[in-house]
């Protein structure tokens, strides 16, 4: 599953000693890693390990307490608004407007990212065709089943061809077939040169990633390709690797 791309040397995320404290609680403790252009970077960890916090800092939603990070070449302290132009984001809470139709959502988010009217129209049409939603295009998002909403949400998040797209547990509560289709969408985006930064609980999904990091108690414990990890931990599956690491965890939610 490793598809090392040609330009794998260009770093789109550089993260060094990034830390976030909430009072005494250290949600993310000096995390350090780089993400290369076009790769699918898996960000794993048990609940409460600090994944979402780290991701929110990289998206410019949360100001780090200390450390450095560059996202798409911009600083997470000073240039958050520049970062936001270059990234897409899909949160674990479903975040399209339920009381708008599919087309209206596409139009709105396209407009916000500064796409021209023509681009919105073209991209919207191809998006709807790809997801096979032609007959639903004018229906309220609230009426769609969850799986479709997730796929739609992802497609809207990459509508403006961002450099990086951040996905926070994007497949929670979705059936296996839809999950498979969702990953097809991810590969497709990756092939277009979009870097994917994804958090997940599902270990089978971890195997789909180019490289993965596993966070335990706010720290990044390991970072490597899935096959290297399995070899180092003498395991046959990512599940086992994860359990070996997670057993040492002190905090959970």
């Amino acid at each position: 599953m490793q598809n090392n791309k040609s330009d794998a040397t260009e770093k789109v995320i550089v993260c060094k000693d990034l830390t976030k404290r909430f009072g005494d609680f250290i949600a993310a403790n000096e995390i350090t890693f780089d993400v290369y252009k076009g790769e699918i970077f898996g960000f794993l960890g048990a609940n409460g390990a600090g994944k979402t916090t780290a991701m929110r800092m990289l998206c410019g939603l949360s100001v780090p307490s200390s450390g450095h990070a560059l996202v798409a070449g911009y600083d997470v302290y000073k240039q958050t608004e520049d970062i936001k132009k270059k990234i897409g984001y899909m949160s674990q809470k479903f975040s399209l407007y339920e009381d708008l139709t599919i087309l209206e959502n596409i139009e709105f988010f396209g407009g916000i990212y500064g796409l021209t009217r023509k681009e919105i129209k073209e991209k919207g049409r191809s998006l709807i065709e790809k997801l096979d939603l032609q007959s639903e295009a004018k229906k309220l998002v609230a009426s769609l089943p969850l799986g479709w909403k997730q796929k739609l949400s992802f497609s809207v998040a990459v509508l403006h061809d961002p450099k990086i797209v951040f996905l926070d547990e994007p497949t929670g509560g979705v059936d296996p077939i839809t999950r498979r289709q969702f990953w097809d969408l991810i590969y497709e985006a990756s092939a277009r040169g979009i870097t994917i930064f994804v958090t997940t609980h599902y270990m089978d999904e971890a195997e789909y990633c180019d490289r993965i990091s596993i966070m335990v108690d706010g720290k990044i414990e390991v970072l490597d390709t899935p096959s290297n990890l399995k070899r180092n931990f003498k395991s046959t599956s990512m599940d086992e690797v994860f359990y070996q690491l997670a057993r040492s965890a002190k905090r959970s939610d």
Partner: protein
Amino acid sequence: MRTLIFLLRKEFKQIFRDKAILAIIFVMPSVQLIVMPLAANYEVKKINLAVVDNDKSTYTQKLISQITSSGYFRLQSYNASYDQAYEAIKSDNADLILEIPQRFERNLVRENKEKIFIAVNAINGTKANLGGAYLSTIISNFNNDIRMKLTVGSRFSQAPTIEIVSSNWFNVHMNYRLFFVPGILALLVTLVGSFLTALNIVREKEVGTIEQINVTPIKKHYFILGKLIPFWVLANVIFTIGLLLGRLVYGIIPAGNIGLLYLFVGVYLLAALGFGLLISTFAETQQQAMLIMFFFMMVFILMGGLFTPIESMPQWAQIITKFNPVRYFIEVMRMVILKGSTLRDVASQFVAVIVFAVILNSWAILNYKKTN
């Protein structure tokens, strides 16, 4: 600028899709504007009177009939004793007891003076005060009549009298509706505008869509303008409906310039909506937002001079009202609609409201964090 247009289109679509909100925006204020002024009335009339007539003479009968024909009193019961009448007050059936002593007529004529007892249920102080005053006036008139008759031609009938002529400007018929409709309209416009703004943003927080907005490159002030403009427009629509209702239902035609009214409302709404915005930056849930809004609105309304005059407040309270934007709006509404005041007359209120708009909105923008 283009972003703003996309934001506005989204907001308007959402508002017009939500039927419950539309009803709240258009039906509720209309109903309130029609019903509230009917009920809001401080006039003291129909005071329930319990009479204890221990004399039962021609004089007392005449006095009682003068009282009941005054229009202020409603004869509730004749009672055999004061205690019996007091029971009527206890059970809330009477507001006022008039007790005439035995041999009232005879004593008045023979001894030149006689007392009459009035006991008022004074739980409602204003009502008691006016009720007592009305009754005393009627008794004093009755007294004069009797004196005139008994002393025809003597010097007492020629005591110098000052005739008091009173005229009521701006509201000749002392119509309470004229007084309340502009104030209530001010209140409704404020309530709907600020509540909707606050709840709308907090709802995006609760549902999680605000997070999606926060990772987009939307500029803060565009996002906020995108929220303000739709509700500013809606509040203006409500204001217009209110003016029309005031005219159709209550026949209130603004004495002053309508353009001036709209100009003021336009600026004022920036302050009112800015307040809603500010609250939304503090609240995490709709329940919280609503309660906080409710709390402040209650204080604003009570301290806004809608129901009780600001001049009657103690000095410290009057200073507090200076920090209440609703006060200025109610004042201007009444001044322009009832008295025909001009821009020069309301200039100070204009300045105050502009200051509020600037402060509240800047505070809200500073406090609205895309990052935390």
